[in-house]
């Protein structure tokens, strides 16, 4: 299969239409499984008690907050290299999804921090860099809507997405580089996860569910964006009818 075949926006929209029910269906099944497992089956933590169950929604949201931004940055780089509209569409469609995941990571983190640390918020390096990530998403979304001419908006958005990507390694390594209140990595670390398997399994299932949900929503938003671009082209009278 030639991936360039699907670089055509209309063909991509067709592919997204086929894959959407599968990604959404699998996301719902895995999320249901991880919910029952995380809330009822997994044991409470010996230090954190049942407050640890917040981790099953906090950590996947935080993973996706970074993953979606990475997708946005890579798409923006590809958009610069090939000047392909689909790359801009992917980045633009990702931003609101990433913003929601980041907001959820922050809010669920606060709900965990209050009982565990005794405070909703501290200005430590991890929390601050994730808050900056949230503002990068918002800035990116605003940039698209603030600039009237699509080509200029796309260019400005690509630059912001790429410049903002320096924040990603800062988030990842903030817990190692600075003395943060936020605990260091327990899953993605060089010497393997340090979490007990009965907690790690539902966490990874929920992480996979969040990832599939992102893909499903991305398909929807990309289809919407492709349709809107087509509509704009038709209205400008640049495209023969029925093509």
């Amino acid at each position: 299969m030639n991936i360039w075949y699907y670089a055509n926006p209309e063909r991509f929209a067709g592919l997204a239409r086929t894959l959407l029910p599968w990604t959404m269906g699998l996301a719902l099944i895995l999320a249901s499984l991880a919910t029952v497992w995380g809330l009822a089956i997994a044991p409470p933590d010996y230090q954190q008690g049942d407050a640890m169950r917040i981790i099953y929604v906090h950590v996947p949201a935080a993973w996706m907050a970074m993953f979606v931004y990475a997708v946005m940055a890579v798409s923006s780089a590809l958009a610069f290299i090939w000047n392909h509209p689909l790359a801009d569409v992917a980045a633009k469609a990702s931003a609101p999804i990433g913003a929601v995941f980041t907001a959820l990571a922050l809010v669920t983190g606060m709900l965990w921090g209050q009982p565990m640390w005794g405070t909703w918020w501290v200005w430590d390096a991890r929390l601050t860099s994730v808050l900056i990530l949230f503002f990068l998403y918002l800035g990116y979304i605003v940039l698209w809507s603030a600039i009237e001419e699509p080509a200029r908006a796309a260019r400005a958005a690509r630059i912001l997405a790429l410049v903002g990507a320096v924040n990603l390694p800062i988030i990842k390594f903030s817990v190692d580089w600075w003395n943060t209140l936020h605990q260091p990595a327990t899953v993605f670390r060089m010497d393997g996860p340090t979490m007990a398997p009965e907690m790690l399994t539902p966490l990874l299932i929920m992480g996979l569910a969040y990832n599939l949900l992102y893909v499903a929503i991305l398909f929807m938003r990309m289809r919407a964006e492709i349709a809107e671009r087509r509509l704009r082209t038709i209205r400008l009278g640049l495209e023969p009818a029925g093509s």
Partner: protein
Amino acid sequence: MTLQSFLEMGGYAAFVWPAWGLSLVALVVLTLVSWRWMRRAERLAAASSLKAPDADPSARPPSEPVA
């Protein structure tokens, strides 16, 4: 495990349930908003590509108002 003790979440109910509830609500709303946007955009695009007799504005019948 009783239902009562499950709902109490070992005394952390005020933190665990809002965290899960907000996650559920936010992701469901995002999904629905994206779905509706997609449906509306694709309907509009399909309708206007059927309606336009020709993309070239000069070739349109003179009775059609020019936007």
